[in-house]
């Protein structure tokens, strides 16, 4: 009984660690976007390229190598409940599942859509007390974040390539969830981010 409780506790700890890794990945994307703004690229594609490279490098260091380094420092049974295999399975599942849920719900898009809808429904005889740039930011929907999604796919492939030798079942998770992610991305690109909104009256 106590063994089972310990096992469950270990599983919860490894799942929390995976959740922390996913949260750090999100923070890294946010930080890299801020860093790219300082670089002041002349064209947008240059910014996207540099941002994608930065996000991939940062997330590779954060995700791919950190598990191996911790394992080699604190050597334990890789097949145990708090072992490397279980941690990697938890991480990859959470990583792919979180991205799928976010790309389906897309809270930032829904928030901006609600704000822009409120403005367009408002009687425009009343003055809107905002500068034009601020108003445009409120009205325009967010653009599709290509670096985030490129980095997501590449990091998942790196994790599978690097740790696939010790845990071949890792390959099954991206195969399953990438197929759903493909349809989610397609829906986002074609339905959410490429439809021009009519703001004229």
């Amino acid at each position: 009984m106590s063994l089972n409780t310990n096992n469950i506790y270990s599983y919860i700890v490894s799942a929390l660690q995976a959740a922390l890794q996913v949260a750090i990945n999100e923070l890294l994307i946010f930080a890299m976007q801020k860093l790219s703004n300082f670089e002041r690229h002349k064209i947008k594609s240059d910014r996207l390229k540099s941002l994608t490279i930065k996000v991939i490098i940062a997330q590779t260091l954060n995700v791919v190598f950190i598990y191996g380094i911790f394992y080699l420092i604190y050597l334990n049974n890789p097949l145990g409940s708090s072992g490397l295999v279980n941690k990697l399975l938890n991480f990859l599942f959470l990583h792919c599942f979180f991205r799928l849920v976010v790309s389906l719900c897309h809270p930032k898009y829904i928030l901006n859509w609600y704000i822009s809808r409120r403005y367009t429904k408002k009687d425009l005889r009343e003055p809107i007390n905002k500068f034009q740039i601020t108003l445009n930011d409120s009205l325009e929907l967010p653009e599709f974040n290509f670096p985030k999604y490129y980095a997501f796919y590449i990091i998942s492939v790196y994790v599978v390539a690097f740790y696939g030798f010790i845990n071949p079942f890792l390959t099954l998770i991206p195969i399953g969830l990438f197929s759903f992610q493909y349809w989610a991305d397609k829906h986002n690109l074609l339905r959410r981010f490429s439809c021009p909104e009519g703001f004229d009256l």
Partner: protein
Amino acid sequence: MMVSALEFSLFMFALGYLIWDTGVHFGANGGFIFMNVLALLLSGTYVAIFMFSSETTKNKILRNYKKPDFLSYSDYMSFKINKFAKTFYTENPATAMFRDMEIVANYISDSQQER
């Protein structure tokens, strides 16, 4: 860039084999380690050529000739199955007008010759 990053996964694969082989494979001897190091060196060389060399060197070594940039996949496929003219003159509405312009030009030139 996506292709380069995905090519790099080959190096990660070889690195993973080298690091985890001795930990998992208890009967690993010097021969296995040598083969893993060799695989790592080969993948490192391939990735270095693919990512950091110039286009000319890449073409010479990897025979990775760059295809012309097509506007879309359907254009590429029509080129591949040798039906470019059909697509250009009939199926694509943006370029079908060239056919009409050719017909009009031929009609004008013929009519001028008759006079």
